[in-house]
């Protein structure tokens, strides 16, 4: 695939779409975004204008029908992913798709089959794999520094809950939020997850109760190797975005702190005071969005397999569904019960 530039179309110009567009346009020299699609005309016009994108269309099909487009980034709501992916694959476009691929295992299976059949590259946007902190932990574990991994701890807390309308259509905490942690749990430990035990509650905000969801959860994973993981989630950690991992093993432990805008410490008669963690995912994960897109483009240029595949997307959803079942039935659930 040796061309001047890779030509991209971006479908969906919401929060995440804008991040990807900005990276593709301003920070990656080998790509050009020549088309964007979104049903919201106002937002579409603004984004196309801001980034000098020549083609702004209401319908994604107009992007897929263009012969000059090499690849697309799907940044539209989850329930639109499935039809767009199938159409894109049929049109021979390489696909970067935001997480989750879909909430249905059968649909994801179909997607995996189709992209393979059509011979297009398919990558899922589990961006945290590309965060410098988590990358480092991954590399330390891979290099054998912690020895045989025994216990993985993940803490993942949002600073504040999303709006009620979002919560209602999100698929629930485990598929919307914890799904990142399920992927991280697979990324950091080189063994497959076999069993899940989850407990969840509404302890912060009754809006979650109204929406039939939870806001606080602890999930335990068992791995084939005997290793275990705990994930604790909350939709509201008022002090900021709290994202920490810790891998404990036979030779040591690797852990990360939260990223802060700066690392000053101010000390007065009341003690020490330091900066709160970065406040939301756009700030916290800036480099990771760039890193994952660069990895995707790298695969296109070198004709290699994307580092985050449809199977990775599938397994994260499977674990999420197992967690939901476990919480409902208050027992350990084997992944084999789900998929």
């Amino acid at each position, binding site marked *: 695939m040796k061309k001047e530039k890779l030509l991209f179309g971006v479908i969906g110009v919401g929060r995440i779409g804008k991040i990807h567009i900005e990276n593709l346009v301003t920070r990656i020299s080998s790509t050009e975004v020549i088309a964007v699609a979104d049903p919201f005309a106002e937002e579409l016009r603004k984004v196309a204008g801001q980034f000098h994108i020549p083609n702004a269309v209401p319908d994604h099909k107009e992007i897929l029908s263009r012969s000059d487009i090499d690849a697309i980034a799907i940044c539209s709501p989850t329930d639109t992913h499935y039809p767009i992916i199938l159409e894109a694959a049929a049109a021979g476009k390489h696909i970067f798709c935001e997480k989750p691929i879909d909430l249905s295992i059968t649909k994801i299976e179909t997607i995996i089959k189709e992209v393979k059949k059509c011979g297009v590259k398919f990558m899922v946007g589990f961006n945290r794999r590309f965060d410098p902190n988590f990358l480092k932990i991954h590399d330390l574990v891979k290099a054998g520094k912690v*020895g045989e991994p025994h216990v993985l701890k993940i*803490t993942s*807390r949002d600073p504040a809950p999303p709006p009620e309308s979002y919560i209602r259509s999100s698929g629930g905490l485990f598929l919307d939020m914890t799904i990142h942690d399920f992927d991280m749990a697979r990324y950091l430990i080189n063994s497959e997850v076999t069993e899940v035990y989850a407990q969840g509650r509404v*302890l912060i905000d009754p809006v979650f109760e109204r929406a039939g969801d939870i806001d606080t959860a602890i999930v335990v994973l068992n791995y084939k190797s005997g290793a275990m993981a*705990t994930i*604790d989630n909350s939709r509201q950690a008022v*002090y900021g975005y709290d994202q920490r991992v810790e891998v404990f093993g*036979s030779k040591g*432990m690797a852990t990360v702190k939260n990223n802060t805008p700066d690392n000053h410490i101010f000390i007065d008669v009341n003690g020490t005071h330091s900066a709160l963690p970065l406040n939301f995912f756009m700030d916290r994960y800036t480099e990771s969005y760039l890193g994952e897109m660069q990895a995707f483009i790298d695969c296109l240029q070198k004709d290699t397999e994307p580092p985050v595949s449809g199977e990775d997307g599938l397994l994260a959803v499977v674990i999420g569904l197992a967690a939901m079942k476990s919480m409902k039935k208050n027992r350990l659930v084997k992944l084999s019960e789900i998929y």
Partner: protein
Amino acid sequence: MKKYLNIGAIGLGRLGKVYAVDLAHRVPNANLIAVADQQAGLAQSFAKEYAVPKWYGNYQDLIFDKEIEAIAVITPTNTHKEIVIEAAKNGKAIFCEKPISISLPDAREIEQVITNTGVFFQMGFQRRFDKGYVEAMKKIEAGVIGEPVLLNSTSRDPFPPPLEFCDPAKSGGLIADMGIHDFDLARMFMGNVKSVYSVGGALAYPEMKSIGDIDNAIINMYFENEKIGVVNLSRNAVFGYDIRTEIWGTKGSLQIGYFRETPLLVMTQAGITHDVVPHFMERFENAYHTQIQDFVNNVLGDREPSIKAKDGVAALLVSLAATKSLHENRPVDIAEI
């Protein structure tokens, strides 16, 4: 009020020695009259080194010593019942290290004897006297983090005790021996535990299987008030002693614990480094001292025990439920025990 308490220390193992040295030197209103250990040689050499007037090769002689008013029981868990009951029958004030005993019937028997004899009995859970935990409790009571909703506690030993000690018949096993601290703290911070679910395995030391124990465990907790928690335990933190408790609430979070032992940071081309807390003796040195001083003060001041037998029983119940959950691979209600 009496000025001094005549006390005897029973058990001179790793932890027993810590208490005995404190009582010998650092508790001004305690007179360490005697030490006892079933290894008579240990008792004798300790008495000689620390100028303790008497030593015994068995606990009974110490308990029958009329000069002794109070005893500290720092012996293997499966010996607590017989020693505590004998001491209670002989009217001694009792300090007993965790866990209260190896089984629920034994614990209930202890409770009953204490009630019947009316002796002073204080349970030993030193973390409650550690500055970090004390301050955390104050912050919670002051509403600084709002309503506590999630507890995430980690307790890891740098290496396991000798295999014979690890034997569940002697110590209760990993979950009871180590986890009981976190279960006691969980009750203190969050409220009573309703049910537990455990997973675990012998991941670093396969020989644990030969005695029917594990070296790594994760215990989920549901509290009676709907809150949730998770405890993870390990016997193989090769880098040091790792004790951290996080209490997360509606308005913030508290992180208790630290890694650095020596107040020194070294920066060279090779990197930035500091050491790690080695073991419980270092980490909880002050807490053990504060705790035993508190016991002596309470006895002399005729006050209520800071931690009672029923707290010991409550924590034991959680341990037993968590161990049962591990063996039967299902959530277990405390009420089942």
